[in-house]
């Protein structure tokens, strides 16, 4: 009986956090944001991704047979959590979690080749999954022959990627080259400058390969993505609380640190009391993904939806604890605020995730 992290997992966590503190301090995130404001079509920061590859983070979910580390989703969730904590601008969600999970579930020779390339971090694969759960603006992809047509919204980690993984409906999965003819990718900037989202317009885009009967691959991919995204949000919340507590100890008003006022103390207490149980839910959801697959979908829905609700409260409360200062660009708190605000809807909004959770249990209309 051991509900917690192994020694290896703690080491992974510490290593990555130390690396990120050193390599991706908040000034680097600011610089990335400023770069994007200047050049909105800029793609992924490949240099940072290469450094993460050196730490083995790009191959966390790639099987050992394809030169990855073949770790569990809980390990990947720890990585996502650390990246959220650092509001690091990386394509980990798509290229480190969703693509590897889809590819290793397919287990085709082509997929194995992709996995090998992903593990090294040299190849980056974006994922366009939004239409699996939310169709807006008449989006949707279809096949005509072996060419892809249509539109996909809010693709993840696609601008500057080498290839894109495209679910076509719920059963087929296509890989296309980012530079393929007929493919127009437009970065869709969100308030969160740390995550790359884009629109794909496909007009007869040739596929590199197409997998049919890929339903379970697509499902597992979405599931893993949701759990990793919940972990990312969790990590961002941890950071906001830590910053609030530190600020409250430091800031003096009326002759005393504001952290000694009961109202401020209680705001911080409520934040942490709401957040700590979420950690357990995210861990359990990740554990289920590998060990108890029947339970995993429900846990993933709840972890992402509930984590998002808690995060919205924390983002607002942390900003209030910081007062006017928290509202300035300089104080940087808003990077986490915006990260969780965007995460909230990326792989399903809380309301629809809860409706999904109810459907999984045959509750409902």
């Amino acid at each position, binding site marked *: *009986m*051991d*509900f*917690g*992290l*192994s020694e290896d997992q703690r080491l992974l966590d510490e290593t990555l956090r130390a690396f990120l503190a050193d390599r991706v301090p908040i000034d680097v995130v600011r610089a990335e944001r400023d770069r994007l404001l200047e050049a909105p079509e800029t793609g992924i920061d490949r240099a940072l991704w290469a450094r993460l590859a050196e730490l083995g983070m790009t191959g966390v979910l790639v099987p050992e047979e394809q030169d990855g580390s073949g770790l569990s989703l*809980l390990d990947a969730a720890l990585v996502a959590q650390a990246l959220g904590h650092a509001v690091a601008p990386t394509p980990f969600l798509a290229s480190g979690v969703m693509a590897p999970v889809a590819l290793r579930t397919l287990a085709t020779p082509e997929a194995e080749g992709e996995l090998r390339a992903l593990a090294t971090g040299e190849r980056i694969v974006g994922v366009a999954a939004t239409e699996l759960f939310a169709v807006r603006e008449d989006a949707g992809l279809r096949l005509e022959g072996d060419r892809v047509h249509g539109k996909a919204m809010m693709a993840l980690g696609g601008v500057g990627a080498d290839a894109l993984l495209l679910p076509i409906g719920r059963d087929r999965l296509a890989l296309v080259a980012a530079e393929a003819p007929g493919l127009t990718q437009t970065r869709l900037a969100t308030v969160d400058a740390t995550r790359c989202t884009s629109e794909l317009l496909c007009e007869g885009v040739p596929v590199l390969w197409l997998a049919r009967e890929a339903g379970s691959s697509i499902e597992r991919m979405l599931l893993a993505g949701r759990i990793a995204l919940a972990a990312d949000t969790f990590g961002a919340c941890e950071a906001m*609380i830590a910053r609030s*507590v530190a600020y*409250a*100890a430091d800031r003096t008003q009326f002759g*005393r*640190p504001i*952290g*000694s*006022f*009961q109202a*401020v*103390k*209680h705001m*911080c*207490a*409520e934040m*942490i*009391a*709401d957040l*700590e*149980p*979420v*950690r*357990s*839910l995210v*861990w*359990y959801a990740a*554990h289920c993904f590998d*060990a108890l697959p029947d339970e995993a979908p429900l*846990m993933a829905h*709840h*972890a992402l*939806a*509930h984590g998002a*609700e808690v995060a919205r409260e924390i983002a607002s409360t942390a900003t209030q604890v910081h007062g006017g200062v928290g509202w300035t660009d300089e104080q940087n708190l808003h990077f986490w605020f915006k990260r969780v605000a965007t995460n909230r809807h990326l792989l399903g909004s809380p*309301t629809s995730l*809860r*409706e999904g*959770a*109810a459907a999984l249990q045959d*509750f*409902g*209309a």
Partner: protein
Amino acid sequence: MDLEYGAEYDAFREEVRAFLEAHKPGNLAEASAEDRSAWLTKQIEHGYWARTIPTEYGGYGAEPNLLHTIIMDEEFNRAGTLRGTPSQGPSMLVPTLLEHGTEEQKRRWIGPTMRGEVIWCQGYSEPGAGSDLASLQTRAVADGDDFLISGQKIWTSTADKSQMMFALVRTEADAPKHAGISYLLVPVDSPGLEVRPLRTMAGDLGPSSFNQVFFDEVRVPRSNVVGRRGEGWKIANTTLKHERNSLSSNAEGTWMRLAKLMRDETMNGVPAIASPVYRDRLMQLQARMLSMKYHALRMLTCALKEEPPGVAGLVAKLENCQLSFDMAALALDVMGELGALYDHAKYERARGHWQAHSMFALGLIIGGGTAQIQKNIIAERGLGMPREPKPAKA
């Protein structure tokens, strides 16, 4: 992460299960006091109760093992019977005696308490001393070899069914607030001691009964002090430390009942579960319930590994109480007009259970340190935030 218990523990679980199949009595609620004691005694003989208490004080004498405790609790729970007895003697007095009692006190009280032959109530709270317990005013004045106790206690649950009370009383009138308190054992049938039932807002809906206890020069021998005179505050606090952090909550069971209610209860021909708004609330509550369920597993792991849980160890009560209250609130909403029915009214749902649940959950938010005090503790002890400055003398 490994959620299995392992072979050794699976074997232990089998043992407990076999014991229960062989020995579990019928309806304990209707059993005589003797039958109940006999059942407790049998549990002690097999090591399923008083497990870690030394044999010389009437226990089984095993080494502490948290997983054994969990497994026994789970199996007794599954069998639908209580392990031991849930009163405050075994949970609060006995650990205190083991740590601070004299040899005579231990030999005299621990065995009978564990066997259910002596029932205890707790005399801590007073009408004027709630969150600020140390401001208690019940006094014990030395009189020869005795103390004479005068004052009033409140919230003494089961005082009407107890033989003995362990109480905090002020023995040192001139000492500072925290240093003047002693921990005293008081026979409930002492002359001058009167127990009066205390009605709560839940009326007769509640499972437990509270009382007020009035002391008018109640005489108790000095030898009934546990630990040293004037150290009662410290002693009571070390006991609270012993209280096993509630590792399991009944939130999952409550949620299951709520989900069932929502399938059963219909309005205008539509079951509540088919209302998207109610269903959304049910799902929100399920997520919170699951969070607390796995949070408890995480805390259990910390306890097993003897790792300090940090701030995570301080938040369960606050969250569980609010969750419990919110689940009752949804249940009451779903039942609508009929949810307020009470007192055996026709159409009353589940005997007014959800009304009681709502009020008791609110009571729990208040009791045992209000939510406000808990938030102070989380912030100061858990997050290391600065204490409030002491007020200047007026």
